[in-house]
């Protein structure tokens, strides 16, 4: 039931926003902060020719070329996170201790073709 922000019609690889409010999953009674989590994700095509904005590696550029010549044999490159940032969560554990926990690589900031 998380709020799906309108996904732009373009099917090109990019970061898609998805915010999950912890109330929606019934976690508000043990999570003190933050109230929700930016569960962004990467989605979309990596077509030939791979444009600059798709942050493709040389290998990905070649792979799109080969895919355009042989679609059945070689898949397109994948749309994946290329820049992520951490989040922190403040919560009560089962012993009523207050815990602050940092998580690396939790929020997708940027996507690219790999």
């Amino acid at each position: 039931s998380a709020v799906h922000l309108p996904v732009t019609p373009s099917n090109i690889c990019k970061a898609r926003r998805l915010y999950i409010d912890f109330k929606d999953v019934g976690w508000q009674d043990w999570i003190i902060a933050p109230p929700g989590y930016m569960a962004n994700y990467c989605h979309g095509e990596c077509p030939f020719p791979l444009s600059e904005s798709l942050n493709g590696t040389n290998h990905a550029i070649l792979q799109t070329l080969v895919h355009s010549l042989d679609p059945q044999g070689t898949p397109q490159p994948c749309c994946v996170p290329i820049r992520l940032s951490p989040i922190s969560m403040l919560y009560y554990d089962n012993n009523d201790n207050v815990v602050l926990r940092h998580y690396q690589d939790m929020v997708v900031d940027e996507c690219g073709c790999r």
Partner: protein
Amino acid sequence: EDRNTRERLFLGSLGLSERPQPAGSRHTRRPVPSELWRMFRRSESIQARDSDPCTVSEYGVRGNIIRYVQDQGRLVSGWSSSCQACLVKQLFFNVSVLQPVELLSLAQLEIRLHWKPLRPAGLLRGPRAVSMSLSKVIRATLRGADPRASRRLLLSQSLRPQLEPAAVAMDLTPLAESWRKPGHNYGLVVELSPPPGADPEELTPFLPGNAFPLEEAWTLPLMEASLVVVSLNPHQCRSRQRR
């Protein structure tokens, strides 16, 4: 069932074996220590995005989990007849909340003593120091045996009543590491008593209902203890070079 399985898998990836079910409502639970709020706010700020989330700069150690483990010890003896102005309290911190995979980086004991100011004059005129000693308990005390035989002194210092809470901090990392072994955690004992040479009778603490001349009485300090535990989950903190 499917939803519970998904939730358990998601919580597992967050390093939680199950969804915490803390007692009481959010309003009755213990308040969040201000230091933790400060750390949380700092980690939320933009510049923190580029800092390493697996180093706790406030304590200068590697770690991505900071716990304020609360004291579960009991009052061993209050103001006994032999010493009206003494207090002996056990401190027990359940460090088994750390998962076996976690590497303990720091365990810092923090004791805060709050004197209830009777009246500033009463405090300033009758500066009654309090002698505080902290000991670790190295084994269970056999019935009838002298409890002091199973204690090893860690810290002894004199504290003067003051309007601001007095804070005592001590690094107990090696000791807390030993407590992680099952059956090895006998906790600590903290004793408050009049300073050596003072007459315990004279230093009668101010207890509600006792009619003492205020300038002679002094308040017993309220004591709060917590153990700040910093640990690192290597599965969530790969020591890779940041790109």
